[in-house]
């Protein structure tokens, strides 16, 4: 086992070719920041490596897809590699599916201090300090398979600390059988760690979240192995923009009468919890029958504009991307029992809801209302169960509000995108 301590940084999933997702509009004052966020987070990985004076850097794949990253992507990586070369910090890189070796232009040669593992077989590299071996690295780039096989990383026990570097989904039981001290893995965008007596593994995640499916903090892992071979890991937050989902449930709403103060309180708490980060917030508000008037008129757009005006500016803005109303699961029974148009509608809607709109065909509507574009028809007729379920809930809510005589903005959510105006995106 190692007699000297050493430290290394573990990062991956830069996805420099992939911009931030789930954004509905781009305010001018945030456009540049959002555009630069993935690049900035990736650059911070190398800054951290220099700042922490690590012994080596582990990159676990999916840094960028050269064909879609443009000239800036490869140039950026080579520039960062050169920075570490100046500091004599070696880089060990197990490529993933996006940055597969075959995608890398042949004309561009990697610097000598960058070791890119083969995708055909596992390769073993000995990391030495002053000629003295400290760590054995066994790495393999992705060969296209989804799952990482523990058998590919078997290493004879030796006196050095063993580190496996790979990319892909993991099966913990398979990893536990291999004789590896530390698994440095890539392949998923959310960081994750497994530490128990039989296994120490880390999924570093992406340094920058890209969508609301990747909420919360992102960054990389800083690992330090002491002279007794004991590993200590620290997660370093590097993201500049952070996705957050906020939800107000029916139970929470039942105790309040006004939405704005409650949302403001939540926003302030989120800003405090994620200080120093630009936040992208999506609100989900569960409705019950007593709060339906919140959705009428322009109240939703007004609430969204208020939130953006209130919290969407400054050095670290909390930008509300969208407010999503979750329709109530059930409306008052007396409404559907009414011998009125509303009652008739709710009974029809309930029948369709039970069948999840299976028998509601809108092909005739598509044919009648859309211009002759096969693409549009394909889009509009593309039905997924989730879409149908969401559509029936909102359709029931809209129909109910209209038939109750409420003022409903049928184009809510689209007006801010320039619907009905000549506003450019």
């Amino acid at each position, binding site marked *: 086992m190692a007699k000297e301590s050493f430290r290394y940084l573990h990062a991956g999933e830069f996805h420099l070719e992939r911009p931030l997702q789930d954004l509905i*509009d781009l305010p001018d004052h945030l456009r540049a920041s959002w555009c630069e966020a993935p690049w900035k987070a990736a650059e911070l990985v190398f800054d951290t490596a220099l700042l922490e004076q690590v012994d080596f850097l582990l990159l676990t794949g999916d840094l960028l897809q050269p064909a879609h*990253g443009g000239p800036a992507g490869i140039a950026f990586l080579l520039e960062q590699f050169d920075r570490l070369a100046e500091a004599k910090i070696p880089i060990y890189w197990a490529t993933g599916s996006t940055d597969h070796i075959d995608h890398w232009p042949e004309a561009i040669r990697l610097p000598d201090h960058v070791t890119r593992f083969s995708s055909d077989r596992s390769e073993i590299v000995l990391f030495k300090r002053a000629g003295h071996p400290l760590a054995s690295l066994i790495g393999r780039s992705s060969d296209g398979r989804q799952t990482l096989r523990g058998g590919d990383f078997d290493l004879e026990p030796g006196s050095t600390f063993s580190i496996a570097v790979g990319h892909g989904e993991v099966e913990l039981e398979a990893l536990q059988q291999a004789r590896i001290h530390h698994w440095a893995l890539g392949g998923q965008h959310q960081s994750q760690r497994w530490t128990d007596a039989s296994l120490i593994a880390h999924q570093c995640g992406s340094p920058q979240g890209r969508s609301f499916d990747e909420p919360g903090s992102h960054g990389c892992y800083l690992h330090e192995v002491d002279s007794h071979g004991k590993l200590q890991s620290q997660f370093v937050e590097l993201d500049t923009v952070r996705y957050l989902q906020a939800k107000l449930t029916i139970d929470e709403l039942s105790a309040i009468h006004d939405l704005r103060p409650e949302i403001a309180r939540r926003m302030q708490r989120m800003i405090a919890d994620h200080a120093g980060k630009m936040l992208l917030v999506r609100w989900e508000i569960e409705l019950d029958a007593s709060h339906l008037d919140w959705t009428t008129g322009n109240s939703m757009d007004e609430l969204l504009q208020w939130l953006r005006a209130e919290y969407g500016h400054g050095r670290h803005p909390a930008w509300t991307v969208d407010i999503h109303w979750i329709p109530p699961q059930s409306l008052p029974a007396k409404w559907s029992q009414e011998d009125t*148009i509303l009652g008739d509608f709710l009974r029809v809607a309930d029948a369709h809801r039970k069948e999840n709109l299976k028998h509601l065909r809108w092909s005739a509507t598509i044919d009648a209302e859309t211009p002759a574009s096969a693409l549009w028809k394909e889009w509009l007729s593309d039905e997924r169960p989730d879409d149908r379920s969401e559509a029936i809930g909102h359709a029931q809510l809209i129909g109910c509000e209209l038939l109750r005589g409420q003022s409903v903005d049928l184009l809510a959510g689209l007006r801010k995108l320039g619907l009905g105006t000549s506003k450019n995106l």
Partner: protein
Amino acid sequence: MKIRDIQIDGFGVWTGLTVDSLPESMAVFYGPNEAGKTTLMQFLRAMFYGFPPERRQRYLPPVHGGRPGGALRITGPGGGYEVSRRATLDDQSVQGQVTVSGSDGVTQGAHRLGALLGQIDESIFSNVFAIGIRELQELSSLDDTAAADELYKLSSGMDRVSLVDIIRQLKQARHQIVGSAEEPGFLAHALQRREKLRHEQEVLLAKGKRWTELAATRQNQQEEIDSLYERLGQWEVELKGVDLAISMKEPWIERDRIREQIAQLKARIDLPDDAVTKVKQLITNQQDRQTSIDQIKQQRKQLRARAASLPIRRPVLEHAAKIEAAAEQSPWIASLQKQIQRLQADVQQARDHLLEDARRLGLSEEDQQQLLRDQRLANLPDLSRQAIADLAVPAREVRIQSARLAKAKAQTVDDRTEAEKLKRRIDDFLAVREQTDLTAGMHQLQELIQKLRSRQEIDERIEKLQKHRRELQEEVVDLEAEDALPLERFFVLMIPYAIGAVMLLIGLDKLLTNFFFDHDVGNGSLLSLVGMVTLFFWWTWKSFTERGTDGSLDDCESQLDAVIRQLKKSEVDREELDRSIPSFTGNAQQRIKECEHDLSLFETLLPVQQNLEAALQRLSSAEQTAHSAGVSLHQAKTQWRKTLHHLGLSESLSPKSLRLMADGYESLVTSRRRLKTHEDELAQRSIEWDAFCQRIDSLHRSMRADASAPSANATSPSAARDAKPTSAAVAPNQTAGSSGSTASPNANIDAMVAMLAEQRSLLQSRRQWKEEDQTLAKQQRAIQTSTDKLERSIHAMLADWGVESVEQLEEQQKSKQEHLKLTGQLQTAEQRIRTMLAGHVPYDTMAQWLSPEHRHELEKRWESLTHRMQQARSRVDQLLQRQGEVSQEMKTLASDRRLAEVQLEMATLEKQIQVGRSRWKTLAATHRMLEQVCEVYETQRQPETLREASGFLKQLTGGKYTRIWTQLGKNQLRIDNQTGQALPLEVLSRGTREAVFIALRLALASAFARRGVAVPLVLDDVLVNFDSHRAQLAAQVLKDFAAMGHQVIMFTCHEHIMRMFHKIDVQVRVLPIQGEPGEAKIYQPHQPAQKALPEAEILEPIAERPPEEPAFEDDSLWFDFENREDRWIPIEVLEEDIRHSRKVPAGWHVDNSTDAGHNEEAGTRG
């Protein structure tokens, strides 16, 4: 629900306004402008639906003070209610304080009010049950198409909102999302934008390819530069080498000369210095070893001679395995001898035991000997197990049947004893009661009891009939007494007679004779009429009274006759019954009790009778069983005897004696079987013994024959000497062999073992001498081999050195000394050359350059190298310049972040398209579901609404327009005129459109009423735009509509309209002055008094109304308004229906008192 009273405590301009006793049909509120009609309408809405902010802001607090709110008294399902709703200024809730009090005083909440309103909210109330001038004005302000559209909405689903409106809104919203070919929508714009971004992205990605190409170019340039640098380095080294080669030319030539001399000498430099000495030493060693070989050959010859003289016999050795096997069987032989002796003793013992068993069975000597020889006896019966088993079955059957017979006999005796005992008991009981049969006695008693009870019932009936007869007789007496007219009733009856007669006489006198009074036709006619009526009344009363008394008397007398007939019939029945009953003393009740006692005694003996019958049945069964058991026993004994005979036994043998015989037979058979077993085993062992003895004897004889044969080795004198002891050893065996048949096998075996041991000893000696000979042969071969090797070495050394003899070898030694001297000189020259090279140029390269064929090219090569180096340096400079340009371009491309921006915009755009698509789907789903609702409405409700509206329109237009209908699939209404021509709404006049509007609204309200929503219809001056004729028709339509059960409240500020309604007997209320408590009183026009109407006309004003409108066309699809049977209903029937169907409590007043009062007042005023 209908409003009966209104009480406004404070609301807007009204304070303390009361409206009492509103009719359930229609009422008109009249007041000029600013009189507070709208406030009153809003008050009604406030009572129904509370105080929303806009209403609260406009009407609260009250202008003239008072507590905000008020109360209504209404009737509805379940009776009457008082609804009060109060508002407080500090409580901004819409509901306020609502209480609904029922007729039973129970206070209920707002939910009861909701139920009374049919659960419709204010929006439905406004759209359906409130028709205002404002809506008519809006209708008139629309263009033709829009107005037609508005009217269509009323027929195609309207309550809170119009279904058509909503569907249109949804369609328009979707259109804004997807747009059309002419007018692109949101999605179209988004797609265009996306296409632009995609194009830009492709351009930017192409820059990435350019960057990669530049990188490849730079890489190639770098590789070329590196290559040129490498080659320049190589050329510099080569140039230095060429310089060195030129300077090393002379030493190199000198060295080549020395090498040539050495080559010519051809000396053997590998020849060692001591080669001659070594060869001579090897020749000496070879001679010494040849001497040793001769000595070893002599020793081997002596050993072979000794071995050939030994007396060895091979046949003896060949039998060695058999002899050893026989020796190993010695213990078994001893054991076999012992077994034979033991078996002989056992055979003897078994013989003795068998003879003893035979003697015990009494067998003769001859039979005993036959038994010993295992022969079956002729006279011995077969008493084997099989025979005994054959006998066991009949023996067991005899035993079972014997036991069964004994048991049946015992049962017969017991049952007979019990039956006799029971029979005696029953006979004793019957003898006392002089009966012969228990059941017949019981039957007689039951019949007697039944007759006694019937007689008792007849007595009671006779007694009742006698009592009833007495009562009827008394009543007849009373009625006969009433038939005579009492005095007081006579005087009472004479009063109207006298008055009537007097009035008739006075009237006739005034009318005709003028005898006592003046001529007055009016009063005379009246008095005459009244007098006649009074006289008619007197006659009717008198007839009724007399007819009542006579009827009662006749009834009583007929009843009395019937009772007497029944009484006589009952007495006849009693006498007949008495004749069938034996005479008895005392009353019938006592006799019934005695009979019942006797019956109970009979019933106690019933179980005894049943036991007797059971005992007799058991006795019969036991006798049958005994008989069958006796038969079975006889059969079993017959079978036993047959079996004995079959087995050869005496038929008189009993089972016991047979069992004793069977036991002795078994013992004899067992002894014989044991003897047989011992004899068989002894014979087997004897056979084994004889066989073994023969085999040993045969082997021993064979051995002796082999030993007596002469040995092959004993031919020589020495062999004969060695064989002597062996012959001596065999001799005793030969003696023993002569008597071999008598010698024991063990002795023969011992002799054979000794002979075998001797032969083995001789063989061991010969084997030892042979090994010594082989050792000596091996030594001889080794020495011979080394000798040959030494000779070959000498020849090989000479051959290696290239000489044939030692002399030639000495000459070669001298040439070698010369060669070594030249080699020293060559090394010196080589050292000098290498010192000059000093690692600058590889030796081989230098050797190549200085080879004789290349030495002259060195100068030319130097010049060529110098030229190439100049060219390479020039190329490197060019490449470096080009590389700088490529790097700059790459840097420019890499610094462009536009691609990231485009990708971000595209991702955002995709999300926007997704949002738009999702919204479109949501709206489309809403639309489709609403269309389903609309289809249901159009197929189920719209036709009915249009039929009803057609009826109203026909009335409103005086038959000019007869039908409202809609074409299938077209959202338009069409109107048929009286000629059957279908007109679109657009071509109709404004007044006709308003008539259509009112007709549709009335049909809509009627449709709600059919669904159970009965809410007052509130109209605000809706007739103001009609001409007088159409206004009258409309007023009549509204009144008829109210008469169908809908309460209609209309507000108007026009006096002519008010009068119009008043003229058709609709109650009109005039609003009082604002600001002080007051009552909206019934309108009383100041008209000259009219004559009183006849009473009958006052009571039933509606029933006398003749049908005014012609019937509709004979179309079954149309609503036949005139032919409805329930249109004109007598008011009494209505009252009764209301009382019974709605369960109005007695304290509540639901009659049309106000209407009646109004009419009475009108009549009175007239």
